[in-house]
């Protein structure tokens, strides 16, 4: 027993020691005090890392949350977005911030203001503006105009018999849209656009539905009937509850239940609006489940709040104040007028701005300020992203400006370029509401600028290098009847019926090397000794330009200004003349460095050679046909310190043969038709494979190579006509008379074949210097076929002249030839018969006949 007591006492002592030991051993224990609320909050703040400034912001925002409620909104989208007169246009409303479960439960009150149907009207108002039969033009006329479309869907009321109303198509509208369960009172609100505060309508809820024409009540009224007078007034079928066939009763359609879409035939000047009634997402302060009944207006312009007041209700023991406004019918009508939408107006969501982008090529063009013939051709092209119009319905207006820097100081040189013939289009007009002159044409989506600008165009920039060119295009869709005056290049004034509202503008700035320097291109010669090869510049190529080409070869040569065409496995040399006063000359090919050393070309790149250091470079054409190279040279003038950049584009092509006539009087390319450009320019087109000649003529032809320098690599070539070998009459020329004299309808077939092969030394150089295997530089056989037709007349088609001539020409073209032949034959026969008959009638009957006749009668 004592033992048990001792154990118990020992346990108590140990337990007390354990409990009290902290209190005894620590001084801080006695610093504790009762914490304040502020201290507790601070403890919490520290514990959870809460920033008091942020909390303060939340609190301040919370104070005005009441004014931040999202009032209902609606947006109208039109299809098409740019309707033409008479075209059916669809307007669809997209409401937002309504709490109604389904958008079909909302009331869409459309109102359509046709062109000229202004409020109040007057003597000049068209009759169709008066829709409700109440005299004068009011907003209700607009509502009726729209509701009639919805109610009847175009049905002709003349076919309806108004002998009684049997269809029970009335509808009682609820406030805030159609609800499955309507257990609350209705509270209509309007939000103040500036403060965001919600005001309750002082006089209770109303609808903005149209009043029935001819003095009837507002549709959707509490009686829920749609009587014979209403049917007649709206033009609905009194024996069909759903005249429009959309599943709604007629009166439900009149109030716009779920009618989010309306279609009508658009006329310029038409405007439309919609008011959507429904339950907002903002709750009222009333002691019930009500949400604010509100309207969304088509432009989301809220009605101005007038006659502000308030009333107080005690709710749950507290006095709650309700701000009110007193809006009358006139206020709402003003609001509806302010929310009219023009389908062509960008504010409705139909884009008025056309997204345009302009690109220009080449990258570093060179202006030839010296000779004025060797400059590059800059091509600027515009593309549109959001226009549904075809190219011919887009009016492009191009202007060109110059500056010494890429940012500012632009000087318009459009007219100067046009006068100098340096633009590919030439219809200079004065832009509307501006003094700016531009090259303007429908469908002119690109424009070419020949950079052969002399001092008279460059003006103050003539001594600057580089010069910056800003090419601007203004585009607009054509559909308006508005006009503006345009001045043609000849100075005459013309009316341009092509002002359009959807428009756009964009530009591109091109850096131009304004120098007389240019990259010359050369073929090369090669010398090889064992594994060592050298190259040197040979003949200059891609340097010719024919302003008025008269042959295929000349036209093709002109294209070399844009991209110099070279053959695969060719060694090309590039050189810039007279570079002694330049330093830091560097060459690149497609961005990669291009060097030339004495090892490669002792003559052109070595010390003591014929060229200045660095002015020459060589490259092997190792790509495939279709690929391009861009050669660029950069240098700095030692005199002025200015940098100069030159570039040249090369395109790899397969060798081709062109066959052309030697004498256009004897043999000519066949006329194949007319090509009409987007700007309306008509160009005659001639075949490059079919030629024509007169009966008994001789075939006089010449062959050229493309590229032209490939001719010197022709190791052999041969002509045949109808399979018979024909010897050259000149260099790659024939003058051949077929053994049998040709007659109309004959055809002779000409064939040219040639083998193009690089000289062996050059092939060896390709191998030694660029590791191009000899198999890669083997010979290429190229051929060309042509047909020569013997005709009676050249196929010249005269399309100019009167419409009658064109009509007859069209007939002669399309009528089968045997019919034409038959008509000619019949007419000839008739003419012969008539002529002989006429002559016969003129000749008097001879006396011999008379005597013979007398004798015959006696017998």
């Amino acid at each position, binding site marked *: 027993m004592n033992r048990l007591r001792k154990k118990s006492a020992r346990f108590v002592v140990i337990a007390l020691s354990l409990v009290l030991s902290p209190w005894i051993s620590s001084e801080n224990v006695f610093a504790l005090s009762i914490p304040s609320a502020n201290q507790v909050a601070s403890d919490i703040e520290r514990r959870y890392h809460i920033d008091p400034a942020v909390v303060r912001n939340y609190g301040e925002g919370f104070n005005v949350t009441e004014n931040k409620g999202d009032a209902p909104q609606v947006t109208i989208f039109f299809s098409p977005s740019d309707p033409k007169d008479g075209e059916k246009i669809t307007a669809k409303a997209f409401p937002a911030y309504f709490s109604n479960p389904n958008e079909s439960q909302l009331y869409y009150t459309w109102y359509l203001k046709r062109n000229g149907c202004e409020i109040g009207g007057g003597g000049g108002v068209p009759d169709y503006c008066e829709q409700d039969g109440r005299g004068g033009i009011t907003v209700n006329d607009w509502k009726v105009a729209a509701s009639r479309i919805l109610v009847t869907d175009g049905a002709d009321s003349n076919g309806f018999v108004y002998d009684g109303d049997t269809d029970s198509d009335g509808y009682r509208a609820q406030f805030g849209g159609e609800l499955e369960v309507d257990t609350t009172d209705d509270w209509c609100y309007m939000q103040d656009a500036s403060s965001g505060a919600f005001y309750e309508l002082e006089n209770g809820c109303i609808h903005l539905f149209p009043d029935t024409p001819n003095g009837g009540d507002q549709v959707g009224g509490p009686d829920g009937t749609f009587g014979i007078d209403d049917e007649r007034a709206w033009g609905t079928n009194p024996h069909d509850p759903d005249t429009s066939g959309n599943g709604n009763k007629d009166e439900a359609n009149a109030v716009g239940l779920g009618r989010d879409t309306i279609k009508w035939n658009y006329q310029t000047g038409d405007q439309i609006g919609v008011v959507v009634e429904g339950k907002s997402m903002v709750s009222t302060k009333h002691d019930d489940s009500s949400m604010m009944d509100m309207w969304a207006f088509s432009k989301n312009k809220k009605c101005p709040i007038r006659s502000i007041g308030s009333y107080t209700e005690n709710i749950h023991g507290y006095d709650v104040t309700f701000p009110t406004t007193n809006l009358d019918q006139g206020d709402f009508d003003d609001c509806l007028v302010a929310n009219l939408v023009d389908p062509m107006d960008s504010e409705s969501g139909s884009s008025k701005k056309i997204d345009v982008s302009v690109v220009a090529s080449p990258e570093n063009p060179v202006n030839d300020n010296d000779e004025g013939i060797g400059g590059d051709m800059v091509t600027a092209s515009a593309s549109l992203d959001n226009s549904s119009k075809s190219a011919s319905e887009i009016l492009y207006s191009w202007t060109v400006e110059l500056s010494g820097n890429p940012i500012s100081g632009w000087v318009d040189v459009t007219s100067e370029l046009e006068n100098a013939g340096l633009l590919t289009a030439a219809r200079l007009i004065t832009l509307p509401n501006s003094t700016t002159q531009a090259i303007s044409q429908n469908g002119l989506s690109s424009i070419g600028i020949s950079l052969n600008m002399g001092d008279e165009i460059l003006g103050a920039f003539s001594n600057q290098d580089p010069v910056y060119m800003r090419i601007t295009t203004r585009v607009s869709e054509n559909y308006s009847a508005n006009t503006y005056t345009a001045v043609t290049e000849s100075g005459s004034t013309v009316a341009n019926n092509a002002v359009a509202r959807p428009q756009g503008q964009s530009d591109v700035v091109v850096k131009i090397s304004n120098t007389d320097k240019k990259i010359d291109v050369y073929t090369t010669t090669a010398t090889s000794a064992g594994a060592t090869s050298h190259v040197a510049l040979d003949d200059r190529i891609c340097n010719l330009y024919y302003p008025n080409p008269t042959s295929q070869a000349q036209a093709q040569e002109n294209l070399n200004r844009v991209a110099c065409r070279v053959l695969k496995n060719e060694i090309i040399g590039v050189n810039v003349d007279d570079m002694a006063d330049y330093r830091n000359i560097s060459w690149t090919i497609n961005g990669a460095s291009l060097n030339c050393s004495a090892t490669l070309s002792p003559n052109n790149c070595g010390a003591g050679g014929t060229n200045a250091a660095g002015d020459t470079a060589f490259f092997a054409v190792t790509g495939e046909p279709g690929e391009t190279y861009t050669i660029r040279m950069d240098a700095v003038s030692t005199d002025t310190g200015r940098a100069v950049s030159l570039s040249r584009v090369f395109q790899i092509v397969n060798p081709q043969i062109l066959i052309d006539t030697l004498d256009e009087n004897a043999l000519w390319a066949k006329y194949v038709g007319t090509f009409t450009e987007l700007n309306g320019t008509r160009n005659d087109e001639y075949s490059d494979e079919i030629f024509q000649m007169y009966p008994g003529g001789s075939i006089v032809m010449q062959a050229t190579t493309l590229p032209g320098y490939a001719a010197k690599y022709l190791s052999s070539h041969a002509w045949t006509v109808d399979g018979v070998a024909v010897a050259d009459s000149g260099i790659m020329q024939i003058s051949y008379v077929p053994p049998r004299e040709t007659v109309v309808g004959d055809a002779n077939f000409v064939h040219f074949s040639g083998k193009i092969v690089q000289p062996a030394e050059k092939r060896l150089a390709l191998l030694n210097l660029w590791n191009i295997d000899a198999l890669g530089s083997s010979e290429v056989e190229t051929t060309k076929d042509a047909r020569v037709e013997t005709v009676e007349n050249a196929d010249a088609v005269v399309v100019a002249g009167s419409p009658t001539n064109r009509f007859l020409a069209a007939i002669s073209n399309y009528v089968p030839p045997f019919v034409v*032949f*038959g008509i*000619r034959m019949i007419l000839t*026969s008739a003419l012969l018969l008539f002529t*002989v008959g006429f002559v*016969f009638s003129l000749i008097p009957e*001879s006396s011999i006949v008379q005597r*013979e006749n007398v004798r015959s009668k006696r017998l």
Partner: protein
Amino acid sequence: MSAFPLPAFNMRRFLATGLLVVATLVSFRLFPTDPRVNGSVQAIVLGIAFFLLLPMAYVLVVLKEPLPSIGFSGSVRKLGFLSVPIAVVPIVSIWYMLLQMTDAKTGYSLPAFIQSSFPFFVLYEVFLVGTIAFLYEVFFRGLVMLSWLTRSGIMSVFLQAALFIAFLVVPDGFGWEYVPMMFAALSSGFVAYHTRSIYYSWFSGWVTLFLADVLFLLFGR
């Protein structure tokens, strides 16, 4: 001598018919062809119009005479059938001799498909040769000989043949392929002169051409 009396001479008729003949031949030669239409088709269609329909229209509309005035009539049957062999046999004999003695063998030719196919040969001879022969009969024997040159007596046979030969040869030059037609012009002319019917002369001309081809096939190849 013709078995039929010569009609009275009519200067107006003579001049008008002569004008028609010359104008028709010139028009035929100068008529513009369309390279898009087969040349042979154009020639046959034009021949039907100029050598058949135009003379018929002329006789009916301008001269206001019946078609028998240009040979569209029968004749004394015995005379007709007798005159055909009398005219044809000598002509064909001459052609045979030409085939044997001259270059006619090489100069004359027939299309290969005619030579190699009997059905085609028959079709060719019956339809093509017959049709073309008929056109020439109407124009040269009917209009030219019986209507225009009728007062020339037997000379009209040679005159129409000369005109026919000139029509063949002058533009294109002589060719052996024309020789049977020249002979046929003579034989048909004689038959037409004696019978005043182009039906017998047509038969005569067709037989001449047919036999010429047969002889060529038999002895000319």
